């Protein structure tokens, strides 16, 4: 992650900070399906990086408008979980009309997603103010609310809280693991959906972990800001 250095008028003893765009996405209802189980609608406890990346690409007008180097850090918290019945409409390959089927689908309520971008801040600020495509998180019928603000990130560890952390990143306290669950989530999906990059991530759905994470950056509230792997589909190898 390249950084825009802070202005020179700060104290010479203060650690260097970088400017970042903090994007806050809120939605009363979010549903992010686990793509591994097509026959059942199991929900993930947080949006995978590929979903967040897709939302950013929607704001920009498609992946063609997004830099190959795009990376971001993210945190997510939902106030509750639930299960609903949705009508599933099978798309029959033979062209026959298939009967709609009710299926259970998990959802998250009172969701807040925080995304930190440190590159092309001005550009992302404009894109998110006037997105090209509607912004959603997993359910086509629910739009999200997006706000942005510029913040300073300082180098050094931060509190885990509700951060999504790449597998391998460790708390400052030696011998411990980040709180919560280890998940395998899609990082990038090719536009034709034939290839997916999967990575391991730690996520604590409670958001209560005070563990100090050996992060590259932390925000003004001491939250860990950890850049995730690159998300641009064009970076996926043609064949693994």
């Amino acid at each position: 992650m390249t950084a825009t250095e802070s202005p020179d008028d700060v104290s010479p003893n203060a650690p260097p900070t970088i400017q970042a765009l903090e994007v806050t996405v809120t939605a009363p209802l979010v549903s992010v399906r686990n793509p591994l189980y097509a026959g059942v609608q199991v929900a993930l406890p947080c949006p995978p990086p590929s979903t967040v990346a897709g939302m950013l690409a929607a704001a920009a007008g498609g992946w063609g408008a997004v830099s190959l180097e795009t990376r971001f850090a993210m945190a997510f918290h939902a106030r509750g979980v639930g299960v609903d019945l949705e009508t599933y409409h099978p798309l029959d390959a033979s062209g026959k009309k298939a009967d709609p089927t009710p299926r259970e689908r998990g959802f998250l309520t009172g969701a807040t997603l925080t995304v930190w971008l440190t590159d092309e801040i001005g550009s992302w600020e404009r894109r998110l103010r006037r997105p090209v495509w509607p912004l959603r998180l997993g359910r086509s019928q629910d739009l999200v609310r997006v706000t942005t603000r510029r913040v300073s990130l300082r180098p050094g560890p931060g509190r885990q809280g509700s951060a999504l952390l790449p597998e391998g990143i460790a708390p400052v306290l030696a011998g411990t693991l980040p709180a919560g669950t280890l998940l395998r989530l899609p990082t990038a999906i090719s536009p034709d959906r034939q290839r997916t990059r999967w990575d391991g991530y730690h996520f604590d759905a409670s958001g209560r972990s005070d563990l100090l994470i050996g992060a590259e950056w932390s925000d003004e509230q001491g939250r860990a800001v950890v850049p995730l792997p690159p998300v641009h589909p064009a970076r996926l190898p043609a064949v693994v």
Partner: protein
Amino acid sequence: MSHVGHDEGKRPVLTAHPLQRVGAYALAFLGGAHTPEHLVPSAFDDAVGVLTDDAVRAALVRDTKHDQGFWLKASMSFFPNSKMNHPSNAKKDKEEIRTTVRSWRTCPEPGAWPEAACVLCGRAAVGFYGKKDVPLAESDVYRNTTPRGHQGLALCWPCLCCFYALPYGCRLTGGPSIALHSWDERFMARTVSRRVERSRQFIALGTADPRGGSDRETIALRALRDHDDRLTAGVELLVFSNNNRGQTLEIQSMDQPLAEWLRLSARLPARRRGFRALLRAHARPDRPGIVGLARNAFRSTELIAGACARYLTRHLDRGVIRSDSADLAELCFSLVIEVMRMNLNEIDEIRAAGGQVAAWLTAENSAGKLREFNATLKEPKRMRHWLMRRNLDALLDSRISTEGPLITEEQFRLLFDPEVEQAWFHRQLLVVSVVQRLHEQGFRPADRAEIAAELAAEEQDQPEDLVFASDEKES
């Protein structure tokens, strides 16, 4: 397509799909390897041969209600309407069934492979597959979830065989199957290999496990406590069915700290003693403690701590401190520290307050005073008032040997400040601490022996808990 060597094309690769991973370990074990990466090509072929032979044998039974029809019946929850269990098999002769099942389990010729990469590992796919071959996949006649032009999931031969081997890594019930999954590879190797041994027996015999469908969470708990190495990841319990009547999947997750704490509770001598009490704390007249504990472990850690507190305080109204109180209290505090990651300073403060209260109660040596204190647990106002009042009494009473005030300002804040989110839990911990210290100090009110005898008669360990505690190595 990737050009992989012949050997690499026959080696299962661990992917992000939990069911594929369970199958990969099962396949490895069937081939005599400890992990998928150690499975050599010839052993891979041998393992696939075992899968095919078992499938043929089950298909020839034809009737799921036959004495040896268990594997045929169970297969419908994995590969419904496949060549193995197709309704038309009833009218086919043996040779025809053998041929069709073997054909189903044979790698397609390279000329028939589609121009697609395996969706799980990226190697060359040998075909497109749906729910007949891959549990919980979409039916191959639907196009909702597959890429444009794909007639189902694109899978390579090893990944497909992992799904064929999946049942061997599961607890088979004939209905929904139970699989344990973790990102801890050593745990996977160990638990899946044990499960494969048992499943092979039942598949070969064609009969069901005589132990029936043991409580699903208990299976996970037993596997955790049998594991020798430190767990590096949590554990997922997957209960699923691919049956034609409806695919179902239920996932329950246990985080690494709790999984490791449960494992250690079988390893450290002091915790083993406390574990017996932990089972008692979760027992109900109609349910063994092991079932209650296992369920709480997957639902919420706080429920385990709550059960401990309730058990320790259950007979305080009669002035009785149980003989297993100290062991259980210590186990409870280890849970609070290692799993719930409660602030150590706060725990020290609460334990200090518990020590002071216990010293005051010991000096009083009255079952009535203990009952009085216990009754305040349900009402924070009463407990606050009780502590404030005794705080003053302790200062004025020369018989009481407490050092300093009964409760300090910081302790009071932890227990009663509305701003403290976990204050209710802190109050439970206070009582746990008081009981622990009373036990250590030999608190013995006059009527103790009589009441303890009554309790012993009332409460017997559940037979299933006794078996679990004494026979944990059985898988």
